[in-house]
């Protein structure tokens, strides 16, 4: 069976990991209250979606 000849050095291990990145979530401005919110979701601060109160605001 094929086996690695050498242990992967810290340097090479870490070089590979440079591609592990977090992606920032897309955030849009709520047209109702100007708070930041996630797209395609009701606004958590004012409870509006598509110009209509969907749910009463929690906070």
């Amino acid at each position, binding site marked *: 069976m094929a086996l690695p000849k050498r242990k992967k050095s810290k340097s090479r291990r870490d070089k590979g990991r440079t591609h592990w990145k977090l992606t920032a979530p897309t955030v849009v401005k709520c047209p109702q209250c100007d708070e930041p919110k996630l797209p395609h*979701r009701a606004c*958590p601060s004012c409870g509006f979606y598509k110009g209509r109160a969907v749910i009463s605001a929690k906070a």
Partner: protein
Amino acid sequence: MRHRKKVAKLGRTASHRKALLANLAKSMIIHGKIKTTDAKAKELRRVVERLITFGKKGTVHTNRQAFRVLQDRKLVNTLFEHIAPQYADRNGGYTRIVKLGFRDNDCAPVSLIELVDYKFPEEAKKAKPKKKTEEPEQNN
């Protein structure tokens, strides 16, 4: 053949899933809108829209088909007499799903699923309160 007939399994056995969706469908008929996870809402849509189509046909047969899911004469009656007539002019798409965000506890994506432009039978109930008790015999 079940080619391309995909159904969300929701991590449950067939019987468990059936019971869950029946339960959610009942809640929809009682409350008009419910909050649940995205996946459940999407699957529930299928069940509830079928029920409303049964209600719009309004035959004895469809009444029994609806009863197979709801298991409650009262709810079948609300569906047939109150909910279905409201959608007489709408060809499908009786439900609306609005995504709400993520649940605090387990970070599950939560949605609101509602009957589109639904009006509760509140005024109708006060005007004719006897109707609910009279109807069940006819459907047996």
